[in-house]
C-alpha cells in the first residue's frame, strides 16, 4: 500500500467509525463487486422492505443484523478483522411477479455471503443463531424469508450427517427396489398400550414395513411410554415371525428433557427396535444429540416435522422447508416428512422435487424451477429418506411413485387403518398396489397414464385392493399451494 492510499484509508476509516448512525450499506454490508469464496456460507433471503427503504439498504441491513452489526457505529469493530467478519450482501434481484401491477407488493431476492469462521463447526444451533437469530424482527423490513442456503463443503464436512442413511437403512431392512410402506397408528390419542399394539401387529402382518407413533404420542395418562414400547415390540416381533421380514415401529422418544429421551431410546434399543423417532419441536441441539446417539447405537432416526408449517408455509415470511431439509441432513436424521404432492398437506410439485433432491442426491445443481438457487455439494454425506404422509391412498400409487421415486417411505395412515375390511386388508392393499406399480414401471409401462389400469388389473385377484380402490377412488385434495416457486421454465427460442 502506498503512503497516499494508506492516508486515504485512515481518513475514510475515521469517517466510517465516527460515533453515530450510518446506513448499513455505508458500513460495508453492501458489496456488489464481492465474489463469494468457495468456503463462504451463502444465504438467499426474500425481502419485503418497508416503504421508502431501498432494496440494497434492506439487503445490507439483513447482512449486518445476521452478522456483526448493531444499529450504531462501534469503535470496538476496529479491534477485529471486521471486514472479514461482516456478511456481504452482493446481489439484489426483484422477485418475478411482485411489485407494481401485481397482487403482491415488491419483494427482492438478496444474496448474502458469510465468512466460514463466523460459524462453529458442526453446530446447527450456531449456524441458525446467526442466520435467523435476530434479523426476522427487524423493523425496516415488512417481511423476510430465508429461501435457500449454500453450505460450503468445508462446513458440510464438520457435521456427522444421517446416522444411518438410505443405503444402509435398506441393507439393514433387506428391502430394495421399492418405496417402504408405513402408517401412523390411529386414533393418534387415547388407545391403551395393548390396543395400540394390536393396530401395529395387524398393519405389519398385512404388509407394511413400518408403523409409526404420531408426533404427539409421548407418555400420556392413557398410555405411558413403557407400556407402549412393550406392547409395540411384541407386535413388531410377532409380525416379523409371521412374514420373515424385518419390521419396525417408530417409537417416539420425544420428551421434556434430554435425560428422558435418552432413557426412552435406550429402552427401545433393549427391546430390539430398529428405529426411534423424534419431533422437530425438540430443537436443533436435541436433534443433533439424538443423531449421535442413533449412530452409536445402530438405530435409524425418524424425524417428524411437527410445527414446521408455522414458519415454512407462507411465502413472504419465515424459512423455506428446503432450508430446514438442508439443516436436518447436516444434523443427522435418517427420515424426514417432506411432502406428498397429492395428499392433504401443502406441497407444490416443483417445490417438493427440490426438497426431495436436497435430501437424497449427492449433489444438487441450482434449479430455479425447483426453488434451488445454488449448487450444493454434499461431499459424501449420507442421504435422508423422505417420508410422504398425509391423506394418501392406494389409488394414487402410480402418481406417488411418478412424483417421488422409490427412495421414500409412503405412509398411509387412514389409507390403511380406515380400510373397510380392516387394518390387515388395508396394509395388503397398499403393498400389492405398490409392488404392481413398481413391476409395471420396470417393465416399461407408462405408469403416469396407465397406472389406474395396472391397479385395476391387480384388484381383480386382490380383493382388499379392490375394496380400497372402490372406497377412495375419488378422494383428492386439489387446492392451490401457498408455497410455490417463483420461476417457471420457459422454452428458449432457437437463435
Amino acid at each position, binding site marked *: 500500500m502506498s503512503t497516499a492510499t494508506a492516508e486515504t484509508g485512515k481518513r475514510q476509516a475515521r469517517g466510517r467509525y465516527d460515533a453515530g448512525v450510518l446506513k448499513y450499506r455505508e458500513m460495508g454490508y453492501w458489496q456488489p463487486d464481492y465474489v463469494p469464496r468457495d468456503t463462504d456460507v451463502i444465504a438467499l433471503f426474500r425481502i419485503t422492505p418497508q416503504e421508502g427503504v431501498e432494496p440494497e439498504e434492506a439487503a445490507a441491513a439483513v447482512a449486518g443484523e445476521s452478522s456483526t452489526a448493531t444499529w450504531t457505529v462501534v469503535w470496538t469493530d476496529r479491534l477485529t478483522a471486521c471486514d472479514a467478519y461482516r456478511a456481504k450482501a452482493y446481489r439484489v434481484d426483484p422477485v418475478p411477479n411482485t411489485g407494481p401491477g401485481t397482487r403482491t407488493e415488491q419483494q427482492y431476492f438478496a444474496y448474502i455471503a458469510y465468512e466460514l469462521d463466523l460459524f462453529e463447526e458442526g453446530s446447527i444451533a450456531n449456524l441458525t443463531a446467526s442466520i435467523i437469530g435476530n434479523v426476522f424482527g427487524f423493523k425496516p423490513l415488512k417481511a423476510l424469508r430465508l429461501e435457500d442456503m449454500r453450505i460450503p463443503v468445508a462446513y458440510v464436512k464438520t457435521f456427522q450427517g444421517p446416522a444411518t442413511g438410505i443405503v444402509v437403512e*435398506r441393507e439393514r431392512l433387506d428391502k430394495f427396489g421399492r418405496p417402504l410402506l408405513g402408517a401412523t397408528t390411529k386414533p393418534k390419542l387415547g388407545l391403551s398400550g395393548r390396543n395400540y399394539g394390536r393396530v401395529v401387529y395387524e398393519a405389519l402382518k398385512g404388509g407394511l414395513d413400518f408403523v409409526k407413533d404420531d408426533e404427539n404420542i409421548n407418555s400420556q395418562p392413557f398410555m405411558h411410554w413403557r407400556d407402549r414400547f412393550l406392547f409395540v415390540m411384541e407386535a413388531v416381533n410377532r409380525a416379523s*415371525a409371521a412374514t420373515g421380514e424385518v419390521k419396525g415401529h417408530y417409537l417416539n422418544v420425544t420428551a421434556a428433557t434430554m435425560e428422558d429421551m435418552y432413557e426412552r431410546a435406550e429402552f427401545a434399543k433393549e427391546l430390539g427396535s430398529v428405529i426411534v423417532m423424534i419431533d422437530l419441536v425438540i430443537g436443533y441441539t436435541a436433534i443433533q444429540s439424538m443423531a449421535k446417539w442413533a449412530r452409536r447405537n445402530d438405530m435409524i432416526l425418524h424425524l417428524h416435522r411437527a410445527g414446521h408449517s408455522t414458519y415454512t408455509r407462507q411465502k413472504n415470511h419465515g424459512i423455506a422447508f428446503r432450508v430446514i431439509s438442508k439443516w436436518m441432513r447436516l444434523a443427522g436424521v435418517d427420515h424426514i416428512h417432506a411432502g406428498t404432492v397429492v395428499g392433504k398437506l401443502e406441497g407444490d410439485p416443483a417445490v417438493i422435487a427440490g426438497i426431495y433432491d436436497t435430501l437424497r442426491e449427492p449433489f444438487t445443481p441450482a434449479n430455479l424451477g425447483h426453488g434451488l438457487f445454488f449448487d450444493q455439494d454434499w461431499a459424501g454425506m449420507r442421504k435422508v429418506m423422505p417420508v410422504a404422509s398425509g391423506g394418501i391412498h392406494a389409488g394414487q400409487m402410480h402418481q406417488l411413485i411418478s412424483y417421488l421415486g422409490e427412495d421414500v417411505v409412503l405412509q398411509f395412515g387412514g389409507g390403511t387403518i380406515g380400510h373397510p375390511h380392516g387394518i390387515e386388508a388395508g396394509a395388503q392393499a397398499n403393498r400389492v398396489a405398490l409392488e404392481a406399480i413398481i413391476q409395471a414401471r420396470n417393465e*416399461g409401462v407408462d405408469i403416469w397414464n396407465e397406472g389406474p389400469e395396472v391397479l385395476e388389473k391387480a384388484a381383480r385377484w386382490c380383493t382388499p385392493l379392490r375394496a380400497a380402490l372402490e372406497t377412495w377412488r375419488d378422494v383428492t385434495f386439489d387446492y392451490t399451494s401457498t408455497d410455490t416457486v417463483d420461476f417457471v421454465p420457459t422454452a428458449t427460442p432457437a437463435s
Partner: protein
Amino acid sequence: MRITQGTFSFLPDLTDAQIRAQVDYALRQGWAPSVEFTDDPHPRNTYWEMWGLPMFEVQDAAAVLYEINACRKAYPDRYIRVNAFDATRGFESVRLSFLVNRPPREPRFELIRTEGPGRSVRYSLRTVRENEGAPE
C-alpha cells in the same frame, strides 16, 4: 407360511417372462445381476450362497435366466433370489432383489421370548423347517 421377502413377494410368483423383464430393467440401469440361494430365509441371514459371481459383463437377460434355471435345477427346494447391484457412487449397493424360487414347503419362524426384568422381553426368531418340531 409364505415369506414375503424381496421386491415382488405380494404378487403371484413371477413367470419367466416377468423375471426376464425385471432383469432387462436392471441391465438397462447398468446394474449387475446375480443369483443367490439358501435354505434359511431368516431375516437376519444376509449372506445367501452365491450361484457364481455377479454377472458384470452380461448384456442379455437370457443369459441370466439360463443361470436362474440352472440354479433351480440344482436346488429346487431352496429359496433363490436375483439381486441387481449398482456400483454408482452414492449407492454401491443392491437396488433390486426378488425371489425366483421357493421350496415346495416353506419353513416358518418360531418367536422365542426370553423374559427379563420388569415386563421386558428379549425376542429372537428361529427358522423351523418341515418335520422339525421342538428346538434342538
